[in-house]
């Protein structure tokens, strides 16, 4: 019965061995512990020869339990379990002692680190002693993917998956797909028109038969697990029947509310209440903005159903569709449920647009202090000024324009501590767009560092300086204030050690890329992790860059952190390939870390008393009730049973159970007590 346990202590080069006496740890593991029949140390346990050593020793020494004292189990638990499996041992008899992340890297004093390591190894040895053989659970896979977000990341991922022959559901919360990329005027470092490369992809997506598109829709809830998600989608009331509407444009042409700030134009342009966000929108069918629509305003004021209001029905009246009009004021939100196998999250970023926090720059106070994305709209041929660079305040062409980099970025005091990565490049681009349109104008850029480590990027930013004549000043701006119709910019040039005062006509703030306002809530809906800046976390920064912390949910684009278009597209492709790998299997294996209610021989059958407290606490509805029946069909007792397919292995039921009838595989009471008991106390 007593196990033969092998302990393998890894040096990790010198990462562990520099501050932990690995030989002593191996030696101590054996001392006073008859269960440990073999110990060794090795330079790199995770290397091929290291894994071979493990396999060989399992066979030679007849080990039926293994402790690898190495890095965090999050790094290589899987590696060592696989290796053991190859050697014919059940992989769930392998435990990892975390000597690197939680010991050698944080305790530089060698005796201290060694003493702790000895403890850590002993804890895992004792746990291993109680390990039981487990087998992976097989689950079927729904061969359909969900892509959340219809920006360039989502579009790329959806197309890649659909082109490989799988069904894709795309959910976009705005009225059209396209995201931020559709708003950009030109793109760096090639200066090709953003919409020219974007719109064909949008059309391709709309026409792809494998893709179902839900715009003006949001994710309501995600349940289930890898391969078998149940996703509830809220189709927000659009007031327009997409099947009937032909996008003829009559309705938004007659709409009398014409002065609503256009979100797509970053508040610089105007739109109607029934509108399409931009001419190339997909679908090219309008949405009715109920907040601003006169009819709905009137209905709210009078507290009557919108259909009873007679204030304005111009859009409905003019709609040429017959016999049933495409406009429907009574439409309500609709919830639809889809079965999904894998999910790509591509929800994008939000530009720091609340620049009022930069009072020293007159943010939010002066109309001619604008953000980078606003400048994109100004420079865009489809923008509010049809591509002419004009001051929002009076339409004047600015002769001196000042760009301030790192607004919100690299600013732990007010904004975010990180670098937004794209601003150096887009500011260089902005100076060029400006110089191309205003030949006699002067562009000044205040920067702290110029960061452009991409292909062709360095050359691009130098072109702005050397060929296009932008003047770069190394320093930050402290204050922008109004003097007559000029904006006085008070900055520094640290290279000459002087204060620089520029009387400018317009100021552009290269504002930071931030996580979406509701990123936190959204992450909680999907049970995925996010970082301190509310960007979604990948599980390994280098080796698993598109995997979220929840199996089957992948990340693409700027929802994971600031990045530019090429990087976004590459990541979207990577996420798509991960989805495809998943969908290519008919069955998936899942970690067998699930709960189980005990079953015993008659006459006890189970120690479960049928209180079903476990059912109340289970977040997944995985606890069912089972009638244990006598031969005559009469019920002897009703007890709890865990549905392995639904159980996610949190252990809530086990901790709640009063009769100790539920155990969580891999973390049962015996194992935990063994760990506690093995700690050496004073």
């Amino acid at each position: 019965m007593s196990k033969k346990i092998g302990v393998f202590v890894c040096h990790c080069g010198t990462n562990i061995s520099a501050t932990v006496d690995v030989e002593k740890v191996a030696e101590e593991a054996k001392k006073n512990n008859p269960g440990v029949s073999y110990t060794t140390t090795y330079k790199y346990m995770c290397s091929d020869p290291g894994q071979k050593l493990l396999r060989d020793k399992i066979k030679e020494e007849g080990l039926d339990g293994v402790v690898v004292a190495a890095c965090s189990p999050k790094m290589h638990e899987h590696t060592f379990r696989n290796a053991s499996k190859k050697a014919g041992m059940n992989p769930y008899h392998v435990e990892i002692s975390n000597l690197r992340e939680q010991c050698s890297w944080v305790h530089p004093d060698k005796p201290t680190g060694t003493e702790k390591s000895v403890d850590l190894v002993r804890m895992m040895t004792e746990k291993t002693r109680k390990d039981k053989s487990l087998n992976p659970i097989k689950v079927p896979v729904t061969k359909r993917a969900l892509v959340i977000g219809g920006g360039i990341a989502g579009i790329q991922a959806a197309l890649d998956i659909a082109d490989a022959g799988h069904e894709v559901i795309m959910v976009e919360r705005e009225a059209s797909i396209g995201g931020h990329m559709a708003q950009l005027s030109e793109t760096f470092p090639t200066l090709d028109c953003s919409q020219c490369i974007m719109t064909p992809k949008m059309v391709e997506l709309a026409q792809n038969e494998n893709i179902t598109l839900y715009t003006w829709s949001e994710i309501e809830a995600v349940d289930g697990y890898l391969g078998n998600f149940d996703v509830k989608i809220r189709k927000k009331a659009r007031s327009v029947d997409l099947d009937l509407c032909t996008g003829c444009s009559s309705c938004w042409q007659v709409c009398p509310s014409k002065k609503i700030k256009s979100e797509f134009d970053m508040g610089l342009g105007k739109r109607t209440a029934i509108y399409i966000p931009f001419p190339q929108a997909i679908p090219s069918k309008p949405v009715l903005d109920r907040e601003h629509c006169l009819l709905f305003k009137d209905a709210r004021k009078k507290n009557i159903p919108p259909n009873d209001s007679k204030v304005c029905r111009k859009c409905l009246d003019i709609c040429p569709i017959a016999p049933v009009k495409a406009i429907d004021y009574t439409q309500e939100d609709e919830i639809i449920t889809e079965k999904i196998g894998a999910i790509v999250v591509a929800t994008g970023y939000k530009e720091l647009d609340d620049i009022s926090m930069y009072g020293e720059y007159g943010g939010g106070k002066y109309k001619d202090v604008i953000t980078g994305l606003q400048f994109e709209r100004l420079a865009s041929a489809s923008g509010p000024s049809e591509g002419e660079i004009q001051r929002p305040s009076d339409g004047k062409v600015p002769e001196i324009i000042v760009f301030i980099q790192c607004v919100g970025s690299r600013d732990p005091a007010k904004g975010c501590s990180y670098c937004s990565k794209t601003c150096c490049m887009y500011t260089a681009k902005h100076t060029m767009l400006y110089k191309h349109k205003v030949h006699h104008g002067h562009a000044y850029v205040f920067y702290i560092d110029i960061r452009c480590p991409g292909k062709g990027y360095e050359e691009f930013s130098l072109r702005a300086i050397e060929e296009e004549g932008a003047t770069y000043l190394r320093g930050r701006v402290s204050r922008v204030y109004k003097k007559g119709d000029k904006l006085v910019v008070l900055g520094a040039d640290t290279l000459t050690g002087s204060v620089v005062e520029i009387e400018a006509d317009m100021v552009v703030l290269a504002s930071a890329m931030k996580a979406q306002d509701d990123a936190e809530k959204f992450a909680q809906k999907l049970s995925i992790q996010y970082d301190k800046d509310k960007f979604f976390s990948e599980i390994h920064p280098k080796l698993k860059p598109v995997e979220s912390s929840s199996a089957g949910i992948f990340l693409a684009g700027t929802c994971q952190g600031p990045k530019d278009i090429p990087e976004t597209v590459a990541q979207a492709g990577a996420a798509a390939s991960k989805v495809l790998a998943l969908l290519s299997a008919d069955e998936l294996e899942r970690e067998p870390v699930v709960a189980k209610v005990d079953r015993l021989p008659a006459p006890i059958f189970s120690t479960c008393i049928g209180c079903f407290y476990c059912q109340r606490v289970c977040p997944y509805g995985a606890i069912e009730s089972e009638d244990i029946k006598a031969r005559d069909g009469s019920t002897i007792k009703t007890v709890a049973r865990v549905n392995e397919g639904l159980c996610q292995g949190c252990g809530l039921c086990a901790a709640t159970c009063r009769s100790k009838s539920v155990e969580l595989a891999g973390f049962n009471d015996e194992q935990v007590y063994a760990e506690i008991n093995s700690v050496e106390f004073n």
Partner: protein
Amino acid sequence: MSEETKKTKIGYYPGCAITKCSTSEEYGTSVLGVSRVIGPELVEIDDWNCCGASSGHATNHKLSTALSVRNISLAEKDGYDEVLAPCPMCSQRLIVSQDDVEKDEKLREEVEDAIEMPISNNVKVSNYLEIVKNYSMDEIAEKQKKKPEGLKVASYYGCLLVRPPKILKFDDPEDPKTMDEIVTAIGAEAVDWEFKTSCCGGGFTLSRTDVVVKLTNDILEGAADAGANAIAVACPMCHANLDMKQNNIEKETGRRFNIPIVYISELIGLALGLNPKDLGMDKHFIDTGSVINAFSNIEK
């Protein structure tokens, strides 16, 4: 009721600059005069000392902290839980010193040893604008007798009322509004301008007059460009620099601003119908007649 009255008795720390017979006595006179009409009741802290001002913190941090904290401990001893220091140099030094000893145990011990009193830090130190806003806005509306006509006031806050913002926690450091609200409340026009919190040169009045002349020139120009015909202040140093240096500026640049610089307390006093002379308005360098004459009785 009793709790409320207890709350409105506030320890008064005038500081050196605004006591009787000092350079800026009219600030103190008007603050006290106004408080007699609209409250809250101000009682001078017994035996207060100089906070050390800029010379203190510029050359000796511990000394400066001890000098400031001694006054807070005195106020505590007298049983006040709030202290008004109308001079922002004083209020800022007091609050920052409070914060310093709060965060630095060692410093606290040294200071306690030096001032021979315990520090408990339960006293809230307030500037004059805070006191007016928190206690007297309704009273002003109730007891106002006069209203100004055509008075356009640029509210000038200077440095020490708002900076450092993380410690002082008073108003928006880039675009404060409290004084503008008071100005508006008494019926004058608060002009929006750009130099609300620009530095006037502060303590360099004597030692680097040239710096003060340049900085005050910028501020006065900003106020004039915004169309102000008076500048309201709540700081004796701002007042001294803006009021006294207009002559020097004229000598150097040839431009004569002739903008009266008035304390916000004087403006409130005028609105309450107090005698301008009792408010000390005859003690200014730039004649305040235009401001005084802008006020006339409210017809009831």
